[in-house]
């Protein structure tokens, strides 16, 4: 087994190890670019990218193997803030952020941008309300905090239940994404691609638990951010949009507005199933209904960020409270690098397709010429894009150019005419994003079940070895179940992600926040808050999803806006009706609020 001494030595050499790794990855990228020039096919390059990165993650997973409880659950609490920031960013940015976000912005306009604000602003809440205090508490899992702060198995069980529902909803979407990417790169059926993706995910987490996941997530962040920024910056230079496009695409956004007015934003004469034409203006907030949709989406995503256990548990791995706070700052910085790139990517890609003065334009060109373009043929061949001359004038109109939103990121290198090696890089980045999130989620579920349900509730006498075996069996079992559900393809990627956030904020947000910020919060109050909030949100989701009706324009992506207030009211009312928590609990809350002193729970528990 890997000893503590080896682990510590590794932590001291992190800078060198990851610098070398980054250089190695760039060298591999250069090598692929060179062999492409020698005529090696696109498919081979795609396969090599995938296998090379997977082999690295698996190696890190193997080297991080452990049989110690605190290494397995919280990476030995020795992850420095900078690296925890990278790991959190990879944990956070899912296949949806990497693959679907820019496409969503491309098609969704102003209301959709609520995701961008929501998925970044949530970290202000994490830092201000949660992370430092939970770190001081010294828990292994989020239900561990609920169970200790409020006491009793019922509160712990409710937290485990909400965690499992939210995380499981989320993880199926991620395994779905790994399956899609593996299927395309390796040219295997999707149903097999899903299991291949799962295998990669388990290689990272099974042997090393949180320690293994932490060090692979750092490696995955490096791959995913390079894979997102390199194509964007390369495309921008190739097409003359500036060296760093992020600060100068205001003109492009304004030009798109002009072009939209010129072409007109009309729905297609005849719809193509699964594909969309552009009908929403790039950025044009109109009524206060638009504003309402924006802020409700942003709020649901922010509160969800601050209650999703796979994110919160990353802050349990730092050596101190101060490092936990610092690592929230690093996390948001690393996330910001991708999130402020996505709107730039969406805008520049759209301009390239729409502006007839650019060589890359598609809209406004002759249908025959467009159909002859290689990238159009490639994507049309797999049914993800279509050009149909529905009004018969021989010119591609804006509402005759159909696309699947997900492909914006994947197709951008081809639209701009970049070499195939870039597409291989993007596929590796998407895989890293989906795998790292899936790993964090699977671990959050398996740890809650093994630590909180099995060890704390079912068999408190279990020895270390037994606990860790149970944790691993659960990890594999839940992964297999998630892959099975994913292979059924029940929901779209983005819908499932938004649901996960709403389940989490309906059930967990207020019990977590008030556990730290309101000493008067009682066990009965917390249980009422979790059950009422989760039930209200779920019932609303079921109602709006089956009937298609909405209350206050809150659709199924925002059902947490209904669940959260119910949770708050139930928790406050029931807390005030029950006797105030005993002196011991109040002292525990006081202790949580200062950084010094021993953590509430013992180092290993």
């Amino acid at each position, binding site marked *: 087994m890997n000893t503590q001494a080896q682990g510590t030595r590794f932590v001291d050499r992190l800078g060198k190890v990851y610098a070398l790794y980054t250089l190695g990855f760039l060298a591999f990228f250069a090598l692929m670019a060179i062999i492409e020039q020698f005529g090696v096919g696109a498919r081979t390059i795609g396969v090599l990218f995938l296998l090379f990165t997977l082999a690295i993650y698996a190696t890190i997973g193997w080297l991080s193997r452990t049989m110690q409880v605190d290494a397995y659950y919280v990476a030995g609490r020795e992850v420095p803030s900078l690296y925890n920031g990278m790991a959190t960013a990879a944990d956070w940015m899912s296949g949806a952020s990497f693959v679907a976000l820019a496409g969503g912005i491309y098609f969704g306009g*102003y209301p959709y*941008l*609520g995701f*961008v*604000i929501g998925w*970044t*602003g949530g*970290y*202000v*809440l994490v*830092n*201000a*309300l949660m992370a*430092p205090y939970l770190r001081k508490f010294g828990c292994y899992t989020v239900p561990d905090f609920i169970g200790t702060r409020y006491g009793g198995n019922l509160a712990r069980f409710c937290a485990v239940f909400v965690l499992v529902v939210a995380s499981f909803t989320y993880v199926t979407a991620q395994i779905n994404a790994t399956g899609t990417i593996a299927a395309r790169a390796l040219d295997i059926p999707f149903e097999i691609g899903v299991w291949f993706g799962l295998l990669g995910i388990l290689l990272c987490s099974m042997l090393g638990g949180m320690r293994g996941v932490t060090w692979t997530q750092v490696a995955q962040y490096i791959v995913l951010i390079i894979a997102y920024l390199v194509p964007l910056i390369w495309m921008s230079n190739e097409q003359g949009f500036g060296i760093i496009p*992020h*600060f*100068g*695409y*205001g*003109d492009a*956004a*304004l030009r798109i507005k002009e072009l939209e007015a010129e072409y007109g934003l009309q729905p297609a004469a005849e719809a193509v199933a699964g594909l969309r034409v552009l009908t929403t203006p790039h*950025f044009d*907030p*109109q009524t*206060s209904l638009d*504003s309402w949709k*924006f*802020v409700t989406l*942003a*709020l649901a995503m*922010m509160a969800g960020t601050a209650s999703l256990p796979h994110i919160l548990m990353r802050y349990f791995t730092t050596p*101190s*409270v*101060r490092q936990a*706070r*610092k690592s*929230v*700052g690093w996390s*948001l*910085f690393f996330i*910001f690098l991708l*999130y*402020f790139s996505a*709107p*730039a990517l969406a805008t520049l890609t759209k301009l390239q397709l729409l502006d007839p003065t650019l060589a890359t334009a598609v809209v406004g060109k002759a249908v025959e010429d467009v159909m002859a373009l290689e990238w159009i043929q490639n994507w049309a061949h797999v049914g993800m894009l279509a050009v149909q001359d529905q009004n018969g004038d021989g010119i591609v109109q804006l509402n005759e150019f159909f696309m699947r939103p997900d492909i914006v990121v994947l197709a951008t290198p081809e639209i701009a005419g970049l070499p195939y090696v870039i597409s291989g890089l993007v596929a590796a980045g998407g895989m890293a994003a989906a795998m790292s999130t899936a790993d964090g989620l699977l671990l959050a579920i398996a740890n809650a079940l093994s630590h909180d349900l099995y060890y704390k509730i079912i068999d408190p006498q279990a020895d270390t070895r037994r606990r860790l075996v149970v944790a691993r069996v659960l990890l594999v079992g839940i992964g297999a179940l998630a892959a099975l559900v994913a292979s059924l393809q029940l929901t779209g990627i983005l819908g499932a992600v938004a649901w996960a956030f709403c389940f989490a904020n309906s059930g967990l947000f207020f019990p977590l926040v008030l556990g730290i910020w309101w000493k008067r919060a009682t066990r009965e109050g917390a249980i009422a808050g979790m059950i009422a909030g989760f039930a209200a949100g779920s019932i609303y989701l079921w109602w709006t999803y089956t009937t298609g009706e909405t209350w206050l324009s809150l659709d199924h992506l925002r059902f947490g806006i209904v669940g959260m207030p119910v949770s708050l009211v139930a928790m406050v009312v029931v807390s005030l009706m029950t006797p105030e928590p005993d002196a011991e609990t109040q002292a525990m809350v*006081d202790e949580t*609020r*200062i*950084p*010094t*002193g021993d953590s509430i729970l013992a180092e290993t528990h």
Partner: protein
Amino acid sequence: MAEVSAETRQAHWRKTSTLTYVVLALWFLFGFVVPWFAKELDAASFLGFPLGYYFIVQGSLIIFVLLIVVQNIFQDNIDEEHGVAEE
């Protein structure tokens, strides 16, 4: 490590709470108020972007990052002042 007195705890928590409320107010301003009035702000321009659009795709994001960094600096000072900082 000496026991922290009740007065120190109270003073420390009062300052910590005040800091948190200020941070949350700024978070609310840039996360909700500014995006709500994006249309009105678009009349102005910044770096060649319409202002409302700029905040949503970039400005508010930068402010969120800075907000966390600045809050942590203040919080470290509060902790040190009351003798409850680690290390």
